[in-house]
């Protein structure tokens, strides 16, 4: 079976996965206690007002009816509207998803830029001070929660050094100037990237150490090639195979990880919208956003599988 056949087969499975995701999301929301209309109207609401609003959002219907109505609208491209703000969920996705994606993308790129050279260097200078320092950083990076790390970054870089603003993503556009636009991203992106840098650097180091122990590296050295040539031409290519395949997954997880960061830094992304929606039991928003994030994860997984086959010719999907 060729890669395209495999790709098509996976593509066919996608609607099935999405269907199950939608069932799970819908069921989870309905079994969780909490009534969006009561929360929205507050304690003073009259029963008549509550009943009117419940009918408006079909919350007075049976669960299967509610699900079928939602799926019916979904098939017509309508994700529904927020019960609280009446904002169409499609608009929320279009406005907020790019923000989350851009932060996740920046964090992923920053992670790659730092983790790959750092991991290579640590392997290249195995058991050196650099190697120990990287491994120490990596242990700390993996252990410290993003939330805590973000607060430490705020303390040093925003409060003490006053190099960057604390919040403000979404406050300015590029037309306000490059720096005013970019600076608010720095702390959130760094906060998000640290864990990934730590994780990725370990993968790169381990992968590089494995490659450097291969026979073809010894052969290259026996041929009198310089260390940099060996690294650049022979070692790095093979080190990149596992890295490239995990990039898509890391990127997808970064989108998930932005929830904490978005909440803390008041970033108008999908994560902060989801938290607000969960608190207020805004079912259409939770269902719509979770579904979109789910589809994004499925897409990234598919991409990882394809990349794996593309970068490593030894892989066959038989």
């Amino acid at each position, binding site marked *: 079976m060729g890669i395209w056949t495999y790709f098509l087969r996976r593509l066919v499975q996608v609607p099935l996965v999405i269907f199950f995701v939608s069932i799970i999301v819908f069921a989870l929301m309905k079994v969780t206690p909490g009534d969006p209309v009561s929360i929205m109207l507050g304690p003073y609401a009259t029963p008549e007002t509550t009943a009117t609003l419940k009918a408006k959002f079909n919350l007075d219907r049976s669960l299967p009816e509610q699900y079928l109505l939602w799926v019916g609208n979904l098939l017509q491209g309508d994700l529904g509207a927020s019960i609280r703000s009446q*904002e169409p969920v499609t608009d929320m996705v279009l406005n907020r998803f790019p923000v989350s994606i851009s932060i996740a993308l920046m964090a992923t790129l920053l992670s790659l830029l730092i983790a790959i050279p750092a991991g290579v260097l640590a392997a290249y200078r195995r058991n050196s001070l650099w190697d120990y320092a990287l491994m120490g950083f990596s242990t700390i990076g993996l252990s410290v929660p993003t939330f805590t790390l973000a607060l430490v970054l705020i303390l040093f870089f925003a409060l003490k050094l006053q*190099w960057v603003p*604390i919040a403000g993503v979404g*406050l300015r556009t590029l037309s306000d100037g490059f720096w005013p636009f970019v600076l608010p991203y720095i702390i959130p992106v760094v906060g998000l990237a640290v864990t990934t840098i730590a994780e990725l650097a370990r993968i790169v180091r381990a992968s590089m150490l494995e490659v450097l122990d291969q026979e073809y590296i010894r052969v290259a050295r026996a041929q009198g090639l310089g260390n940099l040539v060996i690294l650049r031409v022979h070692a790095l290519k093979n080190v990149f195979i596992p890295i490239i395949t995990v990039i898509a997954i890391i990127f997808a997880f970064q989108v998930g990880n932005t929830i904490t960061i978005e909440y803390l830094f*008041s*970033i108008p992304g999908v994560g902060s919208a989801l938290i607000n929606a*969960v608190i207020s039991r805004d079912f259409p928003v939770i269902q719509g956003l979770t579904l979109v994030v789910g589809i994004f994860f499925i897409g990234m997984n598919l991409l990882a599988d394809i990349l794996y086959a593309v970068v490593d010719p030894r892989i066959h999907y038989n």
Partner: protein
Amino acid sequence: MSSKRDFKGTRTKSRGLTRRTALQSAAVGGVALSTALPIFNIARAQDNKLAYAMFGEPTGLNEFMYTEIHGSVVTTNIYDKMARINYDTHQSEPEIVEFKNEDPLTWVLKVREGVKFHKGYGELTDEDILYCFNHVQEAGTFQKGITHFPVVGATRRSKNVVEVKLNTPFSAFPMVTMGYGGSVMCKAAHQEMGDQEYARNPIGTGPFEFDSWVSGSHVILKKNQNYWRENQPYVDEVIYRTIVDPSVRLSSLLTGEIDIMPRPDPKDIARFRDGSEPGISYQSVPGWNWDYMDFTLAPHSPADFPTNNVDVRRAISYAIDRQTIVDEIYAGEALVTDNPVPPGYLGHRPSPIVYPARGDVSKAKELMAKAGVSGFDLEVITSDKEWLRRECELVSAMLSEIGINVKIKGMDAGTYGSAWFTKQFQADLEDITIVSPDVDSALWWFHHKDGMVEHGWQNTQVSEWLDEGRRELDPAKRTNLYHNVVDAVLDDCPYIYFNHVNQVYLLKDNLDGFKAGPQEHIVPLGAVRWT
């Protein structure tokens, strides 16, 4: 060129990144970054702009659709009310209507002249006032049952004069109906846009007009150039930024990213209170709110459950050291009380009235013995407010002294709301804000048998006093009625009140005209200016 060791330990020469070039690059990068620093800390004072930090995202900006803190913080400055509460006198004052009570069932409103709606929607007329009264009734907005319940209808008496007929005398009409429920929207704009669009693009007559809203980030209001109050507003633009976390909010104030912030973490307040933080001033006023504990009573809980015994409830109230809660949870930014009438309200008496501020554990133990209860498990629910969870822990320690084993059940707002509305709890510890300075707002909804009474307390005599208090226009007679209500509540303890929490704001000390109010959803900014 430098000398390095390779992975086999051999010393080699390379032209790669050296320590010196790395340091040079870092220095250049640092300088480049530092040149960009002033950019984020825009000097809003020079630009005559103001940045206010909200601790949550508004839901919508249509006051006839939503009632929540963050939206109200913004809409206070977009919409005018028919009457505005004067926090100093605790009285309602005319805002965009003059009003008089011709007879107990008739209120006559005269529209202020020269008031213009934002964005060219013309002058405010009696048609807009009538439209608002009718809209509440026809659309069944939340005001209908809360603020407009005595309103039979509104009619035009003459040009810009409106007559409102009530079905019963309502002493709190100016404060509750025309104050809390008296927002004025533009008939033409609302008919043109509809509810949903109006919530995202509101038209009012207030000091600022809506400019833009980026969901999850900020709302921008611009100065209303035609505002009817002379010289107001003073600033050209207000940016409401959503910053949920209190430590991030405070850091943003200290770095100059925002100018006013509500609700600092109590542990941070001391350094601002004693003036040790230059450039930042502090305002604190007693809030119109309470922290309280209540219980589901029979038939909503088993008749033999200990909290159905009034002596057990009294014992709990005696066991609470309210002063410690004020000191430990709120860093002194709260007032001890044991009843629901805050200072300044009609019928307020020096508090606590019955239960000592420091508690009385011996008395509590006596009452437990009298009730024949030696100890029991009590599940207490609370919402996701961090300070209430800590308060719950403190109360748990206090109640353990009389043998009550408290199990705290912290819930997110959605789950908590569900448990609260359906009476699915044993005890509840929460806070609530009172919507108007009329004592009716502090008592009726929480103690009348037809009010919210999530605990299920049904006291017919108290309900009659409360109804009479609404109809009665004589303050002295009302005072007596409300004293009766409070005494009954203190005696029967369906609610146990702890404190009124102050509204605390931190702001730049070169801001003038900001006045902290006792309601956190009302933050007028029209009189605020840079000095």
